């Protein structure tokens, strides 16, 4: 009986090696879009990818969305799609600056061109020679420092350019968040009558953000503005403001125009929302890959789309609706 199974196994192995994979004849370019995680930011990016691809006549394969953030979710999906093949370019939001180097290098070695969108490998500077991450064509994503600085400027306007402000951040390890905080700090410093009285890290836990903000409000009772670096930190900060009975006296700014943040803006939970441009990132990614593969155009190593700002006044403006992530 055992012999029979080894015979079946042997035949299977022989077939595996003998049957060759026939290369397809390519008429049309095909790109793979590999998002970072299942969330509105990346679904918005996908829309941008699809729209530009349709315009240029490029085929798009959208990989399965990882159900959580992390290389252990993303890499197996990426590798399965790479094994399936049939694409000439890859747009990916790497979920780790280190762990994606090897799997992406393997795909690059097969002759596939790569652009990273929203997040990057290493320090994101692909122009440096002699690194193990300089092979992608380009990084297309936000300048988080600039965004933080612009938040500071817009928040300053809302509070009359004077008073104490506080920053409720998520995680010092995430480069994008660290950049936002750095930019915010620098931005506040440009206003002589404003002072940043503290930065706390809530590790993405809303409850913690609430406790930390409440503690900050007890230390400095005259805080006039708070920057929550994402949805959870902004919501926690708001809850603390509500509990302290300071609604209206404190302006809250948040990052990312998710439906939740926009609803919060309409409800008065937050007063200012920065919108990144995920759709534009996706669209630019497709465009540059296409230009490189069809015309060998030199691709800039870094492409930075700008930001839009939502306030109570413009949130219902029809022109602004395209920047909401949905």
């Amino acid at each position, binding site marked *: 009986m055992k012999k029979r199974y080894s015979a079946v196994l042997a035949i299977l192995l022989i077939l595996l090696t003998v049957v060759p994979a026939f290369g397809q004849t390519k008429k049309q370019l095909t790109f793979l879009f590999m998002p970072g995680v299942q969330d509105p930011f990346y679904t918005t990016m996908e829309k941008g990818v699809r729209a530009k691809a349709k315009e240029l006549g490029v085929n798009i394969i959208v990989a399965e969305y990882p159900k959580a953030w*992390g290389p252990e979710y993303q890499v197996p999906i990426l590798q399965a799609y790479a094994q399936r093949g049939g694409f000439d370019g890859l747009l990916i939001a790497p979920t780790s600056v280190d762990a994606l180097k090897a799997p992406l290098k393997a795909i690059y070695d097969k*002759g596939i061109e790569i652009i990273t969108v929203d997040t990057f490998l290493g320090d994101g500077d692909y122009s440096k020679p002699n690194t193990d991450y300089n092979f992608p064509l380009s990084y297309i994503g936000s300048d988080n420092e600039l965004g933080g600085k612009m938040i500071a400027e817009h928040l300053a306007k809302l509070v009359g350019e004077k008073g104490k402000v506080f920053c409720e951040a998520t995680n010092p390890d995430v480069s994008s968040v660290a950049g936002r905080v750095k930019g915010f700090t620098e931005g506040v410093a440009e206003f002589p009558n404003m002072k940043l009285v503290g930065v706390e890290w809530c590790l993405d836990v809303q409850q913690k953000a609430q406790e930390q903000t409440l503690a900050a409000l007890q230390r400095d009772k005259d805080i006039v503005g708070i920057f929550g670096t994402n949805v959870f930190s902004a919501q926690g900060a708001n809850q603390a403001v509500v509990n302290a009975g300071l609604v209206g006296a404190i302006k809250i700014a948040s990052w990312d125009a998710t439906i939740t943040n926009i609803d919060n803006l309409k409800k008065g939970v937050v007063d200012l929302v920065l919108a990144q441009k995920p759709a534009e990132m996706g669209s630019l990614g497709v465009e540059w890959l296409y230009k490189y593969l069809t015309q060998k155009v030199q691709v800039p190593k870094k492409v930075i789309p700008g930001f839009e700002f939502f306030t109570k006044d413009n949130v219902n403006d029809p022109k602004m609706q395209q920047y909401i992530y949905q």
Partner: protein
Amino acid sequence: MHADSVNKTSSLQERLGRNWIAIFIVLLVVLFSVSARAFFSVDTAQLIFFNGTEVFLLAIAELFVIITGGIDLSVGFVMGFSTVVSSKLIVMFAGMGLSPLASILAGSIVMMIIGLLPGLVNGWLVAYLRVPAFIATFSMLGVTHGISELMTQGIPTKNLPSLAGIIGNGSFLYIAPNGALSFFARPQVARGQTVIAILPNMVVFAFAFILLFAFILGKMKFGRHLYAIGGNIDAAIRSGINVKRDLIKAYVISSFFATLAGLSYVMKYITGKPDAGANMLLEAIAAVVIGGASMAGGSGTVGRTILGALVIAILETGLRIIGMQTFMTYILVGAILILAVIIDQVFPNRNR
């Protein structure tokens, strides 16, 4: 042998029943190969084993305890604990001036020793204090999770030597287009040329241990004792087996394999984090059950457990390659689990 000829009429049916997983795997491979050309290749086969490494190791961890009639709920977070501690150790050794290779080896070996501790405590609680395995290992899940979180403070380990990723994502043997062989390092070839990679390092690493423990379970006295304990613990005690000692060993082996899974994760993803193995516990238990082990204890083999884990691994990677959502995996694994238990009732003793 003689018994076989007596039961000849039912032998074909029995054979099918006993080996349905192997048949099922062949069917899966045929089905996926028909659906997508790219599935049918050596690379896909290797990718399935590579992606499944951690689940293979955790399934073996679970098997040793399930054979004794217990369960180990802590394996997923012991794995996470292992990723955190080993990665921090490697970074520490590298910081002390050790070479990358020495740091990785030292960190891994020290971790393999530390990794015995959760199992030692689990086994002691179960064997000596008669704490139900479910409770003892559930507590260990909390303890290892908590310690890992305290150590990382929400920040996954970083700054590991890049050699870790080269080892973790590399293969044992490479064949260049001109036929030249090279070991451990991918040869430099022009971009777009195919280099054939054989035997991913992490798969070799995992199966070295899996084969060793398959031998221990299948051929050594200690292995027979485990089946005896799971089959009838009172009879095992009466026949003079040192049940307490052997139970502790089973839990230590479980925790050791969870540690190995953690090391594999660190090498592949060059980081460590508390919840690295959080969603793998149920897959590991499913693999053992699909492999025909009884949750009541006394049965199960390493070979069939690997087949059980392979079913899950083939489904996950295969569904992706043919372009289907892997959420289907959950449904299919659930259905196969039930099927496995029913088939075991129709054809009892298909194991051992």
